[in-house]
């Protein structure tokens, strides 16, 4: 019975989920324990029943309105980014006038340069893997910078 306490929770493990020594010990125990063997057989026989049953219920339900409801609720509350907080941290010497423009779809900051204001560029700060990257998107193409500050 003490062995059953140890081995019963191992029953139902998939390949690779037990250490090789554990798997061998379980196999040896099952060979000698009718109770655990019966549990193992029933576990194998019923494997997947829960998943099948729940997915069958999901398939039986009318999901036609689901995505429309999600989209309606998503449209009501747009993702909010800390644009103003970001602007205050990343002022650039070249940015004489900052004109934040909240586009209908997301947040792009258009930075109007000194000396004419004809070069509108998008200044983006992107994060990936814990590293910050600055991207200047210009009409001539992107400029990708590492996250160190370059402004004075």
């Amino acid at each position, binding site marked *: 019975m003490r062995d059953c*306490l140890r081995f*019963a*929770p*191992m*029953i*139902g*493990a998939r390949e690779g989920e037990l250490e090789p020594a554990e798997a061998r010990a379980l196999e040896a125990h099952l060979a000698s324990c*009718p*109770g*655990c*063997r*019966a*549990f193992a*057989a*029933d*576990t*194998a*026989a*019923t494997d997947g*029943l*829960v*998943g*099948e*049953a*729940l*997915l*069958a*219920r*999901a*398939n039986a*339900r009318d*999901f036609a309105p*689901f*995505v429309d409801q*999600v*989209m309606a*609720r*998503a449209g009501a509350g747009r*993702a909010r*980014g800390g644009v103003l907080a970001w602007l205050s941290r990343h002022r650039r010497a070249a940015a004489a006038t900052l004109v934040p423009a909240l586009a209908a*779809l*997301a947040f*792009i900051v*258009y930075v109007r340069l000194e000396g004419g204001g*004809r*070069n*509108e560029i*998008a200044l*983006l700060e*992107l*994060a*990936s*893997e814990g590293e910050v990257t600055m991207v200047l*998107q*210009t*009409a*001539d193409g*992107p400029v*990708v910078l*590492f996250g160190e500050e370059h402004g004075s």
Partner: protein
Amino acid sequence: MPPRVIPFQGLVNFRPRAPVSPVEAEDLSLVSKARAGDADAFRALVVRFQRKVYALALGIVKDPDLAWDVAQEAFLRVHGHLAEFEGKSSFSTWLFRIATHLSIDAVRRERTSRKDDIDDVEEADLAGGGEGILSTALGNDPRENLLRRELAGQIQAALETLPEKHRTILVLREVEGLSYEELAERLGIHKGTVMSRLFHARKKMQAVLRRYAGPALARRAGEEEEPGPETGGPRGGGSPRPPGERAEE
């Protein structure tokens, strides 16, 4: 005329991951488009995963309407945090992780008793093995698939008898197919606790199913013993004769 600003398109400074499956690659493509504001791409993601998310939520929260709300909330959370999705895990893993936590939160808001949420395996838990009746009932005989479908119909009732922690781990194991390690990470528990909770969940589920399977098996046995038409051949009819072959006299 001022130069036209072309919106930025790209990913910058990300670390290469192991090759993704075509399905995962397609998901990531939809995610990227959704991040750019492509509503159709986000719709496609919702439609792709809505039933599975609902099934997962249903298994945990039990109530179909609550599961519907939880599933919608999961997609809304994803939509609101698309910018922060870094692609370290697959999109589906991220989505199901959110759905899991929302489901658990929904249940715990309504939970009144914790006394059944045990993790330790004790000797009393090992009793009542049932001698493998389920494996006998569900064997490999294709005729028994009908019983499997009948048992599947009892699953919801059986799941509802499980305490929340046991129900949750069984649902995640079977609906999402998570491994022991993934379950441990998802639920913030040790692998040993994963295994003991699954043991408790399966034990209880099997006990409920056994109560149904026993009578069903008995009914089936009764149907098989009814006498059939005389065939003149071996009992049970044997195999059909090929066309043109005359019966032996």
